[in-house]
């Protein structure tokens, strides 16, 4: 086993390629190591790459920790950050690592989907930016190639003022989402609804968005229809954490409540 500790992105990129395992906060990778699921031979430790810690307005460096996002992020992303693991996990785990793992339950993903964020991928040869929907391709699968690093997340310059994150789980802390979601609403009524843990990748409930965006002052029957559409659109599964039925129901109830908070 060997580990390298590059100090710059260029140095880090020169180490990437087949077999190279990038290590950010370690909160996902080390679980796999501890349980004997992976045994990386060539580790690229990213903790010392100062460029990855930079956060310049809408460009969040991949190495920014959830702790920093919890205290400095846009409202709904900060709310999501506060529910990531525990203080110990948030001090180590990063937004880039969350994307690299690409768990369907990643708490940061719904916000990125709701505001149409992009992911910056860099190799020694080139830099490209992909939309969140291009980035996620399946359960823990992304378009990142072995020679690329996730270097940053790009948010739009203007974010909707009304934005809320919510999460359903079996405890208040240290819990993997049964359903998590972000709802945003702009002054002109344009509403976005993004969910995690209800499909192989984060998803937008586009039919529900279209329906509610055209209504300036939704009535309770509009909200009920919105909830029904969200429940219908998601594609959850039954697993050890919950059932398809519960997640489908929870997705509708949670997003309706988040919408009500945005409207309040």
């Amino acid at each position, binding site marked *: *086993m*060997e*580990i390298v*500790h590059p100090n710059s992105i260029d140095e880090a990129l020169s180490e990437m390629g087949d077999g190279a395992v990038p*290590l950010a*906060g*370690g*909160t996902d*990778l*080390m*679980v796999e*190591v*501890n*349980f004997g699921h992976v*045994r*990386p031979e060539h*580790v690229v*430790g990213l*903790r010392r790459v100062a460029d990855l810690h930079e956060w310049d307005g809408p460009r969040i460096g991949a190495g920014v920790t959830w*702790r920093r996002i919890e205290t400095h992020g846009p409202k709904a992303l900060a709310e999501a950050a506060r529910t990531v*693991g*525990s*203080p*110990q*996990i948030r*001090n*180590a785990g990063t937004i880039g690592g969350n994307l690299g793992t690409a768990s369907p339950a990643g708490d940061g993903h719904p916000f990125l989907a709701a505001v149409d964020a992009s992911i910056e991928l860099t190799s020694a040869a080139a830099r490209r930016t992909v939309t969140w929907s291009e980035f996620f391709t399946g359960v823990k699968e992304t378009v990142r190639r072995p020679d690329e690093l996730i270097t940053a997340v790009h948010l739009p310059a203007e974010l909707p003022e009304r934005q809320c994150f919510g999460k359903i789980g079996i405890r*208040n*802390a*240290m819990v993997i989402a049964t359903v998590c979601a972000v709802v945003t609403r702009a002054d002109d009524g344009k509403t976005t609804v993004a969910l995690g843990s209800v499909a192989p990748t984060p998803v937008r409930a586009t039919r529900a968005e279209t329906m509610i965006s055209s209504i300036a002052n939704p009535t309770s029957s509009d909200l009920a229809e919105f909830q029904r559409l969200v429940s219908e659109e998601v594609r959850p599964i039954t697993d050890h954490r919950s059932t398809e039925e519960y997640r489908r129901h929870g997705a509708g109830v949670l997003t309706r409540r988040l919408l009500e908070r945005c409207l309040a």
Partner: protein
Amino acid sequence: MIIELTVNGEPVTARITNPGSLLDLLRDELGLPGSKNACEQGECGSCSIILDGELVCSCLVMAADAADSSVVTVEGVSPVDGLDPIQEAMHRGGAVQCGFCTPGIVVAAVDLFTRNPRPSRTQIKEALAGNICRCTGYGAIIRALETVATGAET
């Protein structure tokens, strides 16, 4: 490979042959068994340490990645002759049952009080959200830490 790091203020050299955790290095190689090994997935907090000033789970730190870092374990929290005020308060308040979670709670509490010397009850609970006590002795733990927060014991 050989790494150098600082543990509880002392320079340490360690030979690394695998991608194992800093927790294993501390316990098995460096003779510091205070950090406990329970879940190995960052869920329980019993292996909490302070790495370069940040509270983390040592089971989720790759030992090789701790090269040139500064580590404080529960062994490094108390003064040579006695207990840290947090340990003193937990001792007095009966905030220890089986004791397995105690080192991690002490380290998490040290981190909390370093950042916020007067935490509220809610802030104490949030700061300990990553530390599980399977005896469920949270009430006494939180009450003991509240006495530190209010200065009642000092």
